[in-house]
């Protein structure tokens, strides 16, 4: 019953993303040219909330049919993959793998899986662009940072740029997660220009009041023409929520990771660039640390 209702809605809805919060379970957010509220619920101070009613939106039959075809294809693929093994990989691969390449940048399709944002969204003056590098073998994130704060009376600081992987979507836009429980470190092959970046890992927690949780760690680039291989164990990621580092720290759980992002906010005005060759996972058997920060309560009330 719910499925048929969903299909009916989708036959008539086009690719605009109004009213995402209310309609999200029913309409496929066809994210072609706008970044939907899946990623952030920020509204620029001074703009009014978007309240166009449903009957004013454009309807398109073609998009609906495309959407149905695509999702049935994905559903079939999911069923077949479920028979093959976890996440579509065979069992030997799942049990014996020690390395896995999660994102590599070899074509425009790989670049489309990432979303670039900068403080231009809050009114700042930074710019950030993502494009394929030389020989289509790397991704180049470049732009300019400007720490001049936007004058809207609310924002105090500015000057950041970020890139984040799009959320995984299954058939009919169900939420899917990465399961990285076989691994314990993140491996990046990058070439930066000396700036310190932050790596954020977004998980999907059970309780919705933890939805702004973020696990972060720093990535210090050396600069220079040589490639830099960075291995960061997941035990080093610290928990922060809404941008503030939390007092009580908990280790990162690897079984429900929704996306990964890189942020630059080092308060230095000027151009920046970062080239990423690939992002992979590593199971470092020599790394036995469970968590780098104290798990006990540090300032007990009693």
């Amino acid at each position, binding site marked *: 019953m719910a499925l048929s209702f969903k299909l009916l809605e989708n036959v008539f809805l086009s690719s605009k993303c109004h009213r995402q919060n209310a309609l999200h379970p029913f309409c496929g957010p066809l994210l072609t040219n706008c970044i939907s509220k899946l990623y952030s619920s920020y509204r620029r101070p001074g703009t009014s909330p978007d309240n166009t009613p449903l009957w004013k939106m454009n309807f398109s039959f073609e998009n609906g049919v495309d959407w149905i075809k695509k999702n049935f294809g994905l559903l079939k693929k999911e069923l077949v993959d479920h028979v093959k093994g976890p996440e579509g990989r065979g069992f030997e691969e799942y049990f014996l793998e020690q390395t896995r390449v999660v994102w590599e940048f070899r074509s425009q399709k790989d670049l489309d899986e990432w979303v670039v944002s900068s403080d231009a969204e809050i009114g700042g003056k930074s710019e950030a662009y993502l494009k394929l590098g030389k020989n289509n073998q790397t991704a180049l994130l470049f732009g300019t940072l400007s720490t001049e704060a936007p004058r809207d009376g609310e924002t105090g600081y500015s000057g950041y740029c970020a890139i984040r992987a799009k959320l995984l979507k299954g058939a009919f836009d169900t939420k899917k997660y990465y399961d990285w429980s076989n691994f314990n470190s993140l491996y990046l092959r990058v070439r930066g220009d000396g700036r*310190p970046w932050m790596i954020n890992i977004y998980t999907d927690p059970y309780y919705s009041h933890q939805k702004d949780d973020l696990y972060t760690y720093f990535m210090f680039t050396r600069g*220079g023409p040589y490639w830099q291989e960075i291995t960061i164990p997941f035990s080093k990621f*610290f928990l922060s929520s809404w941008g503030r580092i939390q007092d009580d720290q908990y280790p990162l759980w690897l079984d429900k990771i929704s996306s990964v992002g890189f942020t630059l906010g080092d308060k230095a005005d000027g151009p920046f660039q970062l080239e990423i060759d690939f992002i992979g996972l590593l199971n470092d058997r020599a790394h036995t640390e469970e968590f780098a920060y104290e798990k006990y309560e540090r300032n007990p009330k009693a």
Partner: protein
Amino acid sequence: MCHLHLVSLPTYAGIMPDNQTKFLLLQIFGAKSHPVRKYQRFKHVNPYPVPVPLPQEPIDLARISLQRIAADLSAKVTVYQMPLTDILDSGKEITQPHIVGIQSPDQQELLAHHNPDRPVFVEGPFPLWLKKTCVYYYVLRGELLPPGEKGEMLDSERNFYYPMHLDLDLDRGPWDDEEFDVDEAEEGPIFAMCMAGAGDQATLAKWILGLQQNNPILSQTPVVFHLAPGPRELLAASDSEPGEEEIPQSRRAQQER
């Protein structure tokens, strides 16, 4: 929550708080408080720390940044030219920018094996950030050879008494396979790097002449300059830049011909 705001900024800004901040934090908040704990955790996180305070003099700055990007502890830094401002008798000013170069023994060997028929490229300037200062460096690199023309590998049967090429990785056992199933992005070999006060061809030609002292093969190799007027991305090369010129470095060779 104001103290959180205070301390969260430096952590996210890539600036490590220093002793003064620590003292202030201790005084204001007490030894066991949240900001102090945060400071203690992230003091030594940077694997490539930038010296504080950063030297202002260009030669020292160039030396430190070249050693940082060379990634090789046995690399040698040579100062090819000191900055000089001369006023001639006629009142004309001649300024000489500084040129500091770096080359490691591995790079020297690669250059010695380079085929002198193929050109080498001087590319630049590329930006390098040290905290808040941006410096620019230039690179001497060769082309990526197609797989058929790579240099000869050492014949494994050349010497039966001991192995000529040893690749022992004693930290890991044979059961650990940490290779990634991806073709890494390959680029041509890098022969040397330098930092100069001015980015024009004459200055960099002086650098090449200085490099020739230790790398005699440079005198026979054509050098192509790919210089951009402003800072460039590290990858963009060969398509369409101004200032592309070839210098057959061998005036002597020409005279011989």
